[in-house]
Structure formats: structure tokens, C-alpha cells
């Protein structure tokens, strides 16, 4: 597949997405592509439209205008569930993990596997063994050093919880994982843990969009960086060809930037 990259449509294409809340234009025509196995950094100041864009991709908000394409096929992402079915898993800043349930139960929450011996539809018997086996498989594939799958999430550190959320995306074989501020609440050590997990995702051919406001992290982990400012894209840069200073200038509007070619009008 990688050799045919030029022939394939991009894995994810965001085209001229607009979203307004009342009189606020949160997104004013944002477009970008995400390639297979690419780690894309998404940065911007507060109010740049990062969260709105994440919510649009995650299926939380419907865009007012514009389209979302996965493998060239237009998607209507009306709910988080539909986004997941389209292959997009979003790990929000405030993780949707249940502290008193185990790692396995969290990964399979509301998507449980069922064994034989079904009685009533709502009372189907869950297949604990199979779910545990798959979690262990994901640990191995990703080289995750997490506590055993039947450990409760309450006993995990912040970095480990991120890892569980990421493992959830991998088990469900999502093509795109969106990480919303994955390192915001973490210390230096746990940040390193999460950075190494993102690299492993990439090694497994998963494309990642990382939303962050930490310049150092985005330069360290991404292949490409998109800069948002006031609901518009003001930069689409190859990471190795840019600098923190350039990014900050674009984020704050210190330098007037010509929009990249291929961008929508206005």
C-alpha cells in the first residue's frame, strides 16, 4: 500500500469545513488532507478553532458547510458512533474512562463481545475471556507495558490511562486516531510514555492527528503541522522544514501569511 500512495485518495480529507455558533465563526473554511500512516500536528492559540475541528471530526458537531472524506468517500458524521464506524477514534482530553471498571471492561465498554448462550437481547452474556485475550494481544502488538487487563483504571497513572485510550483505538482497528491534548495533564515522564505510544501507532500504519498547544511536543512527534488561527488554516508545514519560531508567528498572526495553495477561496 505505501508504494501506491500517490494513486490512493488521502485517508482523511477535510474540505472547506465551516461551523458557527451564533455569531461566532469557530471554523471559517478549513481544509486539509491526512495521509496513510501520517502523524499530523494541529496547533493554534485559544479560540483558533482546534476543539471545534476535533468535535467535527469526532462526530460531536455537524459542520454547517463542507465535507469529510475517508478514503475518498464522503461521510456524514452525525454521532461519535458514526465517526467510529467510519474508522475514526477520538481520545478526548478528559478521557472517557470509567475508573472503577477494569482495563478490559473500559476498552470494550458498550461494544462488548458476546459468547454463546444468548438469552435476551439486552441481557446477552459477555465473553470475558475473549475480550481479555484481545486486550493482551493489543499489548503485545503495540509493546505496551501496562498492568494486567483486569486491573481497574483507578489504579493507573495518567500516562497509562492515555495508553489504555490509545489501545482502545487500536483494538477497534481504527485508521485514524485523534488525540486531543494528550500531554496536557501529564508530567515530563508520562509525556515521554505517550510520545512513544504515538510512535508505535504510526509504526502500525495508524494515522494520528494530535491537537496540542505545546510547541516542543508537536515538533518532536509530528510529520506535518497544521496551524489554525481564528477559524482559518494559516499554515500547512512539513515538520522538518519549520521551526518553533515560525509556528508561533503564524499562531499569533505576527507575520501575515499567504494561505497555502489548494486552500478554498475567501
Amino acid at each position: 500500500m505505501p508504494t501506491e500512495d500517490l494513486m490512493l485518495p488521502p485517508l482523511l480529507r477535510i474540505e472547506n469545513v465551516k461551523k458557527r455558533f451564533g455569531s461566532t465563526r469557530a471554523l471559517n473554511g478549513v481544509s486539509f488532507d491526512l495521509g496513510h500512516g501520517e502523524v499530523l500536528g494541529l496547533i493554534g492559540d485559544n479560540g483558533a478553532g482546534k476543539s471545534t475541528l476535533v468535535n467535527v471530526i469526532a462526530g460531536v458537531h455537524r459542520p454547517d458547510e463542507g465535507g469529510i472524506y475517508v478514503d475518498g468517500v464522503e461521510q456524514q458524521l452525525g454521532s461519535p458512533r458514526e465517526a467510529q464506524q467510519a474508522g475514526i477514534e477520538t481520545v478526548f482530553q478528559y478521557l472517557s474512562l470509567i475508573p472503577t471498571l477494569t482495563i478490559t471492561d473500559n476498552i470494550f465498554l458498550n461494544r462488548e463481545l458476546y459468547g454463546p448462550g444468548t438469552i435476551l437481547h439486552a441481557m446477552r452474556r459477555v465473553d470475558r475471556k475473549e475480550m481479555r485475550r484481545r486486550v493482551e494481544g493489543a499489548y503485545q502488538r503495540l509493546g505496551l507495558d501496562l498492568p494486567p487487563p483486569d486491573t481497574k483504571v483507578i489504579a493507573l497513572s495518567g500516562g497509562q490511562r492515555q495508553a489504555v485510550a490509545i489501545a482502545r483505538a487500536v483494538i477497534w482497528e481504527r485508521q485514524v486516531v485523534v488525540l486531543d491534548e494528550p500531554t496536557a495533564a501529564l508530567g515530563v515522564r508520562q509525556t515521554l510514555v505517550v510520545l512513544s505510544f504515538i510512535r508505535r501507532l504510526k509504526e502500525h500504519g495508524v494515522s494520528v492527528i494530535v491537537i496540542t498547544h505545546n510547541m516542543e511536543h508537536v515538533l518532536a512527534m509530528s510529520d506535518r503541522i497544521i496551524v489554525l488561527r481564528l477559524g482559518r488554516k494559516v499554515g500547512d508545514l512539513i515538520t522538518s522544514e519549520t521551526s518553533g519560531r515560525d509556528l508561533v508567528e503564524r499562531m499569533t498572526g505576527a507575520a501575515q501569511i499567504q494561505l497555502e495553495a489548494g486552500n478554498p477561496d475567501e
Partner: protein
Amino acid sequence: MNWPASSSNVGGTSATTSPRLRRRRSTSQAERRRRLATWVQQNGVLFALLLMGAFFVSRSDRFLTRGNINIVLLQVAVTGIIAVPAGLLILAGYVDLSVGSVMVLSSVAFGQVFKSSGSVTVAIVVAVLVGVAWGLTSGFFVSFLSFSPIVVTLGGLAAARGIAQVWSQSITVSGFGDAFGKLGTGRWFDTPIPIYVAATVLLMGFYAWNQSTAGRHLAAIGSDEVAARAMGIRTKLLPFLLYGLSGLAAAIGGLIVTSQLDGASVSIGQGEELTVLTAVLLGGVSFKGGRGSLLGVLSGLLFLGSLRNGLILLKVGTFWQQVAVGAALFFAAALDVLYQRLERVALEKASDSDDVDHVTEALGAN
């Protein structure tokens, strides 16, 4: 913080052998603490039950006889039937304080419908419908309109008994016939029928609690409702339906007591909500929601029944029984705190060791 874009070295195996070993050891220690904590939480009452049982056996020849065991089980049967949905409600972070009054309302409904229709079957159907409807109504206000569960069901506690008194004019209807009498007083294989009913409900409860998605979804709701909703769990529908089951269980309990008394008396079910709550909380189900097992609830139930029975056999006065129940509840609260402290200690240990070695690993791979 270097970031090699194309690293094929997944684990950095040779460089990290010794930290891995170190981590294994400390994790297993943390894991042991965690398992101990879980065990204490889930089996603390079971352990207390066995200790107390041994004590009563040593003091009384009658305690462990077949007849006495039947008495204990029969006494907790109705509480047990109601404790299954009640325990699940508390697991989900809700509570139903109206069960004692729903018992008497169903009983009076049974009595009044029997008096006017003469049919036990019709009367049973109406009694059950009244219980379920009352439960669903509470559930509607609590789940869908987000009213306080304590306030709504406390209101139900007062209102349902009031309605029962007005409806029956406090007159006890009786004479329901032998067939209905069997429900409360009949025996199969020398064991009272209510015990079979309770056993069936408990088995269904074990399935719902441990094997079905409903059980883990309710635990998720009790643990973190916002996160549960974000995962697409039906955080309003499930508790709503569970309130209906709570009403159903109370109606069944009310019918069993009515059968035992052969009378739809307005005094039925008085204080039952507190007995149920005591059994559930003794069983280690956290009142904050999210934690608890049905095995614990069953142990709490048996503990409560044996305690009363044993103290009667030892001819200890009823007020001392109440003191003993109070002391046991205090003990359960202490266990809950101990459990959470153990869990936190385990957390600190786990995160310390894991982080250091993940860092070693992350750096080693560079």
C-alpha cells in the same frame, strides 16, 4: 526529546532487560495489594459471617439445624428479593427508599381487587402492575428529569403508604384461600417456597450483575456518568427500567408477606427499605456507586439474618440486636475507607515503578 521518524526498534530489548525485571517485581507487589484490597472489599462481610456463624454454633446446638437455617433464610427471603434491584440501583449511583411502602401498596391493591373481583389471579396481576408502575414513575422523575433520587423516593415512601391506608381505610382484607397461602407458607422438599423465589431472583441478579452488559453499564454509570454517556451508554434508560424492577420486587415481596399473614394489612413492609439498605451496604456496595458485588449483598443479607437469629437463640434482648446491626454497619463503612486507601497505595506504587521504566525504555529506544 529526539523523535526518530522511522524507528523499527519496538522494544529496545537488550538495553531494557534489567528495568523490565525490576518493574515486574514491583508491579506484582502493587498488584498483590490491589488484589488484597479487592478481596477485603468483596469478602469482608463473608468473612465476618463465617466468624459469627462459628461463634453461634459454639454457643447454641440449635443454630446449625435444618429447621433453624430455614427460619433464617425465610426471614431474609423477602429482603433478598428486593435487595437485588436495590443493590444494582446503588451500584448505578441511585437509591429507592420507597420499597417498604410499595410493598404495602401492592398488598392493599391485591386485597381490594380480590374483595371486589373474587379472583386471586386478577388481584396478583393488578398488585404487580401497581408496583411496577410506581417504580417506573419514580424512575421517570429521577432518570429523565434528574430529580434527586433520595427526595423522590422518600416522597414515595410517605405517599404510597398513605394511599394504601386511604384505599383500604386501614381495614385488613383476608381469606385468600389455600392456593394463595402456598406462596408464603408452602414447602417443597421441606424448604419454604419464598426461599425458592428469593434464590431464583438472586440467580437472575448474579447473571445481570456479572455476566450481562447491563451490569457493567450500571457500574459505569455509578462510577462516572458523564464518561459513561460519552461512551454511548444509555445513562437514563437503564436506571429508569431498574426502578421498575425495584417496584416489581417490592410487589412480589408484598404478596409473599400478604400470603404469610393471609391478610392485606397496612402494617406490611414497615422499615423494609432500611433493612434492604443495611444488607446492601453491609455487603460492601459503595453508596457512592460504581463498586460492589452481589455476593457481598448476599453475605450482608445472611449476616443480618444470622445475627438476629443467633442473638435470639442466645436470649439477647432486641435492643442489643439493633446495637449489633449498627456496629456492623460502622464496620462496613470502615472497610470501605480501608479499601479505598489500599487502592490508592497500590496506585502510587504502580505509577512510580512503571513510569521510571517506561522512561528508560523510551530513552533506550532512541
